[in-house]
């Protein structure tokens, strides 16, 4: 996979249908910002695009690119933690 140029901006995921990350900081406090929880069993998984590290390179991942496959999506508190 081709390496993409890496800037210094904070990298984050973007949920499909929302404004992409970056740009001016939100004028509302974080807690009241847009997205409410939409994940629920039996419902479509919220699509997103996000930067990722994969096998020595930096890449971009889009959830809907995995359509047609089973996918295990695992969140965890942070790198270099102990559990």
């Amino acid at each position, binding site marked *: 996979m081709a390496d993409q140029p*890496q800037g210094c901006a*904070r*990298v*984050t*995921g*973007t*949920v499909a249908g*929302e404004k992409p*990350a970056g740009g001016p900081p939100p004028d509302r406090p*974080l*807690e009241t*910002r847009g*997205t409410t*929880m*939409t*994940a*629920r*069993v*039996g*419902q*479509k*998984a*919220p*699509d*997103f695009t*996000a*930067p*990722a*590290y*994969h*096998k*020595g390179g*930096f*890449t971009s*991942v889009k*959830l*809907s690119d*995995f*359509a*047609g*496959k*089973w*996918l*295990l*999506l*695992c*969140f*965890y*508190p*942070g*790198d*270099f*933690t102990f*559990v």
Partner: protein
Amino acid sequence: MSAVADKYSELQKLGVEVLSVSVDSHFVHKMWNDHELSRMVEGGVPFPMVSDQAGNVGRAYGVWDENQGIELRGRFLIDPDGVIQAMEVLTPPVGRRLAETVRQIHAFQHVRRSKGTEATPAGWEPGQPTLKPGPALVGKVWEVWKPGAEK
């Protein structure tokens, strides 16, 4: 994460792709992989490690903890149609048990192959009898499943 990386080949055999997500940058993911995880799992982490520093993805999945600025241990099993079939969320101090996830993958794949004509009882393991919901099963579950059957 190392537990999932360790079982990655087993998950691949089941046709399951893996993504991990945290609020760390992809640069930190690289350091964690290169300096620690690659010593725990041969070859390092084989799947993409996603960065979600602003918690946008975590918020959409209900695992963003705004007080701590982290994402809770959320595990989502998504089927080939993009539908969430199973989810589990733990607070940070307790790790997951991947064997249960693998069991659920077997069960959900079995049910999907049966096109919804079969269901798996509590504690079902691959190879064990399934339930075929219908008039004949009403009041007869006791014949195929008894308390204590779950290991």
